[in-house]
């Protein structure tokens, strides 16, 4: 019973906090106190469900922007079923390879005395290919879309590149490629005039000894596009000259790596 694990007064206190929990009005410490109660007590869970339904009665349903529907269906991969078009057209269906995919270039001859390394490399190669395939949850839309790109924040954060970025955002021919990030969050690439504006939101916080690193995956090989500053809720980076390549992101040891040492968590085919 909850009373045994929490103590009687702590239990009563947690019960008192349930309405505030339902309103997301608690700080982390109190929330954990309520979480312990909820784990133990079905009555508390039922009371919380009632409070949540009550909070739901405050919500006034409001139609979201119309273009969000197609973008969201594309993000889950469901847009393919609407018209049967194959969004993976650039990918050879037999191998999952895109023409000139860097993983092929990176893979050298494999001797029998390096079986484990070759196997590891093969695994890596395969997962980079998979990422390139999975990344093609693609929407082509006019910009500004207001979906994944916040021009206001861009101008604040990328002051030095503000003019370039502003030009990209104003470019009616700009394209937007979006994908979810393995492990959480969303990423998008705004492609305009040869450059790519990479935006990520909802990324889990990297461990203390890790950084998010961006890569340009080109025919000639994989090159670092720098570390992604994730101190804000929405992270952005201008990746110059990346148009037509794959922009990928990995978690790397703190400070970054010369070449990726882990599998990509997102890969956007621009």
């Amino acid at each position, binding site marked *: 019973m909850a009373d045994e694990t929490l103590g009687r007064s702590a239990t009563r206190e947690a019960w008192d906090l349930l309405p505030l929990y339902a309103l997301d009005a608690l700080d982390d410490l109190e929330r954990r106190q309520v979480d312990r109660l909820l784990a133990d007590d079905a009555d508390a869970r039922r009371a919380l469900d009632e409070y949540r339904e009550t909070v*739901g009665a405050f919500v006034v349903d409001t139609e979201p*922007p119309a273009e969000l*529907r197609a973008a969201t269906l594309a993000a*889950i991969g469901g847009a393919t079923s609407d018209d049967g078009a194959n969004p993976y057209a650039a990918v050879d269906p037999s191998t999952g390879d895109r023409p000139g995919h860097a993983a092929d270039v990176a893979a050298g001859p494999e001797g029998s005395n390096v079986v484990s390394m070759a196997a590891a490399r093969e695994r890596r190669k395969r997962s980079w290919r998979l990422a390139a395939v999975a990344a093609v949850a693609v929407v*082509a839309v006019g910009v500004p879309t207001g*979906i994944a790109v916040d021009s206001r924040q861009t101008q604040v954060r990328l002051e030095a590149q503000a003019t370039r970025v502003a030009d990209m955002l104003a470019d009616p021919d700009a394209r937007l490629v979006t994908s979810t990030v393995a492990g959480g969050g969303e990423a998008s690439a705004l492609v305009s005039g040869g450059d790519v504006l990479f935006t990520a939101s909802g990324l889990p916080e990297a461990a203390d000894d890790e950084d998010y690193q961006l890569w340009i995956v080109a025919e000639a090989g994989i090159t670092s596009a720098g570390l992604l500053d994730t101190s804000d809720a929405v992270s952005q980076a201008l990746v110059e000259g990346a148009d037509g390549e794959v922009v990928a992101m990995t978690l790397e040891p703190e400070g970054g790596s010369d070449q990726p040492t882990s599998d990509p968590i997102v890969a956007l085919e621009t």
Partner: protein
Amino acid sequence: MSGLRQTGPVPHVRTSDPNAVDAALAACAGGDSDAFGPVYDALSPSVFGAALAVLRDRDHAAEVTQEVMVEMWQTAERFDATRASARTWAVTLTRRRAIDRVRSEQARRARDQKDLDASAVGRERDVVAEEVDSAFERAAVRDCLDTLTETQRESVVRAYYGERTYREVAEDLGAALPTVKSRIRDGLSRLRDCLGVNHG
């Protein structure tokens, strides 16, 4: 790029029957992406409305709406129709994300004093805030709010808009912490009873 495809407008089909939404969510849990369209159509207005109330910015609310709808697709198997309606589940997920976003933005501002566009944001926020406030007249809870005392109503409504923890609400109102806590608790309990919400 040959890999890109123009996505055209898709006709909206509204699914208002809660059981149909539950069934569509169950199909989503089974990986049926065709079932997601009806889920999106039924729930995205609640998600967008809930996000807008907290964020008061249509672009941010649209981003959160997309995040939540993708999260519902990915975690559809966790939805438990015996505990809550699909709408309540959607609103719960939305408020968590929207409030996280507001609080991390507040933390960023506290870190970063040079908030170049604070005034512009403020103006946009005011306009959307007016729209949110006038829309609130149509909320299902509206009539029941009259059953609350004025102080209960003020505390609950501030907490609903989500910018503040109840500690901060207490600071804003110049009231003692336990006082605000009990106002919100008693207020939300009264609303629950007035609305006839009873899972017992």
